[in-house]
């Protein structure tokens, strides 16, 4: 990106580096909130929100912009989390190494699963990703390095670059905030690149994109790998922050949860998944004491969103204000 360029877009719309003015304002608000909120709310909660927000943004890249519903994204999140936890604990990797290796693990797994699953579209794609993720779940249950039912516990918060102490919650908070913002901007960059335009054309009309000469399967696979890389980064970050990687991270209910975040926030909006992650994580925190009612509430939100609220919170807001967010 060659700095900030003013581009006169369609009609009177002005965009700066791909951001429309409302988006720029929203981005600014988000960054300010990220900087201010840790003094108001519990930082550990905010870190959890940011990890899931990045995860949800990664899924939204596929679901919202390519129209592919992956029902197995927990596999990449969980694998990223396991790999980061393992290299940090057993090999003594530093924080940034562990998180990057987590992302890499997600990407490699994404290459394999994506290669297999993009052969079929629509509902079958959802079922295949779900089934393959279930296979990864059983693998994690049995593989020696994951610790089975116990998971990997007491993962050290290794120093960043080997020198910066990551023990205080606030130091690790800034690391998570940095990863989240960079990941968010990266996804926005992808969506607004020429590559992203092709992805959107595939979502709208795949045969037409093919007839224009685009090898749509390759585009879908690259988008899949990018998405799984970011899901792995999110999982790895979560493992380092909370010092634990467990089967919950790879379980299919995690896949369902992240789909819910995207759906509730608004598919195909850049800020939607962040808002969705915030709402769902907050709800789980407050309802945690009521046991299985969390599941019931999640299910009800799914039903309400699908029946009456398909654009999601941000989608509805954007439609009301007649802007894109």
């Amino acid at each position, binding site marked *: 990106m060659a700095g900030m360029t003013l581009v006169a877009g369609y009609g009177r719309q002005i965009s700066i580096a791909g951001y429309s003015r409302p988006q720029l304002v929203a981005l600014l608000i988000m960054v300010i909130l990220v900087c201010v909120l840790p003094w108001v709310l519990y930082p550990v909660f905010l870190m959890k929100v940011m990890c899931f927000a990045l995860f949800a943004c990664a899924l939204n890249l596929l679901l919202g912009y390519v129209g592919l519903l992956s029902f197995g994204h927990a596999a990449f999140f969980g694998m990223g989390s396991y790999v980061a936890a393992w290299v940090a604990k057993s090999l003594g990797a530093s924080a940034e190494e562990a998180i990057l290796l987590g992302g890499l693990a997600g990407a490699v797994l994404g290459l394999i699963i994506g290669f297999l699953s993009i052969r079929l579209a629509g509902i*079958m794609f959802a*079922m295949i990703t779900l089934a393959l993720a279930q296979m990864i779940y059983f693998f994690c249950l049995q593989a020696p390095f994951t610790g089975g039912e116990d998971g990997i516990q007491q993962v050290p918060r290794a120093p960043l670059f080997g020198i910066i102490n990551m023990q205080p919650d606030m130091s690790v908070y800034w690391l998570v905030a940095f990863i989240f913002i960079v990941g968010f901007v990266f996804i926005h960059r992808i969506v607004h690149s020429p590559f992203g335009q092709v992805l959107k054309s595939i979502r709208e009309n795949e045969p037409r994109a093919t007839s224009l000469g685009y090898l749509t399967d390759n585009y879908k696979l690259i988008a899949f790998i990018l998405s799984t890389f970011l899901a792995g980064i999110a999982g790895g970050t979560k493992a380092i922050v909370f010092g634990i990687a467990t089967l919950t991270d790879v379980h299919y209910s995690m896949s369902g949860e992240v789909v819910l975040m995207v759906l509730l926030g608004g598919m195909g909006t850049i800020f939607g998944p962040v808002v969705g992650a915030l709402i769902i994580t907050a709800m789980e925190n407050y309802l945690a004491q009521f046991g299985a009612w969390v599941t019931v509430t*999640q*299910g009800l939100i799914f*039903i309400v969103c*699908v029946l009456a609220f*398909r654009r999601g919170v941000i989608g509805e807001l954007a439609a009301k204000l007649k802007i894109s967010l």
Partner: protein
Amino acid sequence: MFSIFGVPAPLLFGQLLLGIINGAFYAMLSLGLAIIFGMLNIINFAHGAFFMMGAFAAWMLLSYAGIGYWPALILSPIIVGIIGVILEKTLISRLYKLDHLYGLLLTFGLALVIEGVFRNAYGSSGLPYRIPPVLAGATNLGFMFLPNYRAWVVGAALFVCLATWAIIEKTSLGATLRAATENAPLVQAFGVNVPRLITLTFGGGIALAALAGVLAAPIYSVNPNMGSNFINTVFAVVVIGGMGSIMGSIVTGFALGIVEGLTKVFYPPGSATVVFVIMVIILLVRPRGLFGKAA
């Protein structure tokens, strides 16, 4: 005691039987999924939840009303089927004009609600359901002891699957159904009430899942997670068999159950994943599935 391929025969046949039983449930569940998909173009993610509800309905009939296994075998599918019909009428029917993915998301939400409610009410530990006295005990076949109830389950499941196949492929009702699957507006133009046909198909598919649940109740403990444990494997079965063939889903269901059982004997760690590995191979060689029609 004799052995086959170095495996004691009773162990081999025991696991084989377990495999066939699992296969019977895979077959009944994937059959229901295939019928519903054919008619509604929806993958019913709540199928496992309805399976679980079938088992719970049988348990409730026994515990609260003193109604035993045999009446429950009829009553439970009817009750759960009616619930399915109501859900189709009130919720699912609103989505037919939308992208199919919304149907999937809605049924996933339904599954969460149903499972959550049952988990709140009955916990996750599981409730026992006794084998009906007539089918208690086991028969000595010479090479193994065959528990009578399990033999009954396999027989009953096979009968139900074949009966469903016969209804769809050989009766005039089935012909109408298949015609509506191919071209709903045309069939409607001939005076058939297609929306009602869709509702009944959904109810029928759900009833099939509930029936499987009643059959499963004495084998597995009745617990809120029994459906979701099964359903992921059933999805893999559906991918392997391919959408759109009734007989295909029956054959694939039983075959994969057997393969799983055999894997448990010869390579136990692989038994949980073998179905998924087969799915990967099928996707590489024949993406539309073994019995799927060409796109």
